[in-house]
């Protein structure tokens, strides 16, 4: 066997490994589902037996009926679309700005010393404090909401990128230099892969904040969106609609987070090796 052939021979029986971890994965999902499902079932039963009228805290069946009604009339889709579009636009703006500014601040210590104190001061302002100003600046429609979300996304991404660049192991960078990499090649082959794991984490926390801020923006005045469903449910005394909107937020929020995770997983497989080993032990 030549050396080339040897490298092509798989060293472990991958499918069986994957199957085993798949079964474990399923088991952990099931374990996580036990608590909410049994709580829901208990409440359903309690309302069914007449222990509570379930008016202020609607049981799961009523929530699902409400959700189904909203979906059937197309309202759910309309509100979801409005909210998702806002989050997407705000997230995109926040990520681009956060990445650029974070990269500049991480790369050059002069610009860090100029930028960072101001940005840290701005970061400590509670998000909702911006709303009146943004409404004056951008009007009461989409622009002010997107701006608020973008602000929310910007800070975790900025901090994540800057911290990641500062945290890159100098010794690894030296390996790149020893192989005569510099400028763009050094960035592409050493810095980018080195910062990617913390970048993904900051994207995910940025997205989480984006979802938080879209609710804030929609609560403060919107004619459509899942946040509007919340307010509408409160004003018309429809708790089931509120919970339905909350459920929708949870599902979509989790789904978008999962999207980031899945999209970046191929680039972070090298990190899994550790997690899997830790899980085996």
């Amino acid at each position, binding site marked *: 066997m*030549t*050396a*080339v052939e*040897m*490298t092509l*021979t*798989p*060293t472990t029986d991958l499918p069986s490994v994957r199957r085993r971890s798949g079964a474990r994965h399923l088991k952990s999902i099931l374990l996580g589902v036990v608590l909410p499902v049994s709580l829901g079932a208990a409440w359903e039963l309690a309302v069914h037996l007449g222990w509570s009228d379930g008016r202020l805290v609607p049981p799961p069946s009523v929530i699902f009926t409400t959700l189904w009604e909203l979906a059937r009339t197309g309202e759910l889709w309309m509100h979801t679309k409005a909210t998702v579009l806002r989050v997407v636009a705000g997230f995109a703006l926040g990520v681009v700005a956060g990445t650029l500014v974070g990269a500049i601040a991480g790369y050059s210590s002069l610009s860090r010393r100029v930028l960072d104190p101001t940005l840290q001061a701005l970061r400590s302002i509670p998000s909702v404090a911006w709303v009146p100003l943004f409404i004056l600046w951008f009007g009461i429609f989409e622009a002010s909401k997107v701006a608020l979300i973008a602000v929310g996304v910007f800070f975790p991404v900025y901090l994540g990128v800057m911290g990641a660049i500062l945290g890159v192991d100098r*010794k*690894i960078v*030296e*390996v790149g*230099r*020893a*192989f*005569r990499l510099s400028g763009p090649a050094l960035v592409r*082959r*050493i810095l980018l*892969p*080195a910062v*990617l794991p913390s970048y993904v984490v900051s994207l995910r926390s940025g997205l989480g904040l984006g979802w938080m801020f879209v609710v804030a923006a929609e609560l403060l005045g919107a004619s459509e969106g899942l946040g509007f469903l919340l307010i509408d449910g409160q004003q018309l005394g429809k708790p089931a609609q509120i919970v339905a909107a909350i459920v929708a937020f949870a599902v979509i929020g989790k789904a978008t987070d999962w999207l980031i995770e899945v999209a970046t997983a191929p*680039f972070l497989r*090298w990190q899994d*090796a*550790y997690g899997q*080993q830790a899980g085996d032990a």
Partner: protein
Amino acid sequence: MLVLDHVAKTYPNGVNALERFSAEINPGEIVAIIGGSGCGKSTLLRAIAGLDRASGGAITLDGDRIVAPHEKIGIIFQEPRLLPWLNVADNVGFGLADLPRKEREERVAIALSRVGLADKAGVWPRELSGGQAQRVAIARALVPRPEVLLLDEPFSALDAFTRRDLQDHLLDLWADTRPTLILVTHDVDEAVVLADRILVMRPRPGRLFEEIPVYLARPRDRASPLFETLKRRVLTALDRSLDRSVPDRDGKSIVGEGMWW
């Protein structure tokens, strides 16, 4: 030929790490640099690697002045410094990015089987043991076929058994293409096993103290009397290098020089 001509390094904070170090190192020669801490041996190696610039003197390889990392010079650090996001094969092939994929893969496969890790090609660095990781680092440094390979205490973090194993292995690999090896070490055994010539440095400021040629045939028997004698000679030189009353070989820093005259 690698020529070190009065190489000096003074750090911006005023520390004089290396002073007028001169040596000529022939192609294919194995040179060990040994000395107490602060003798500037790592500083010297980093200057030859082009990672830090010397503040005085000149380093030339076949007439090329070294001021930045050079394609004919490779380096192995004390730690493996593998890139954690690349698997073993891609780490070894890191310096071959300019080659067509097929040739790169062939050379990586050959290098990996040469260091006995052909079966680890697809494995992530964090799954390797310390000795395996350092083998990968050796393969990575050798695969671009450098004319000069610098080693900065490459085996000092390994256990005694693995260290011996890798020392023998390094000689094996060296015999393939016979690059110049310059090895910084604080292990006298290692210096005598590997080197054709041992340069003993003395600290504060770092400078050359004594040059000890090693006329022993390879493979060297670590238990032979001659080996012991050489070890003792190196140890004596090290002791004397740390004794401040012993003058430098070139006599320039002899305080009482006038007495002889």
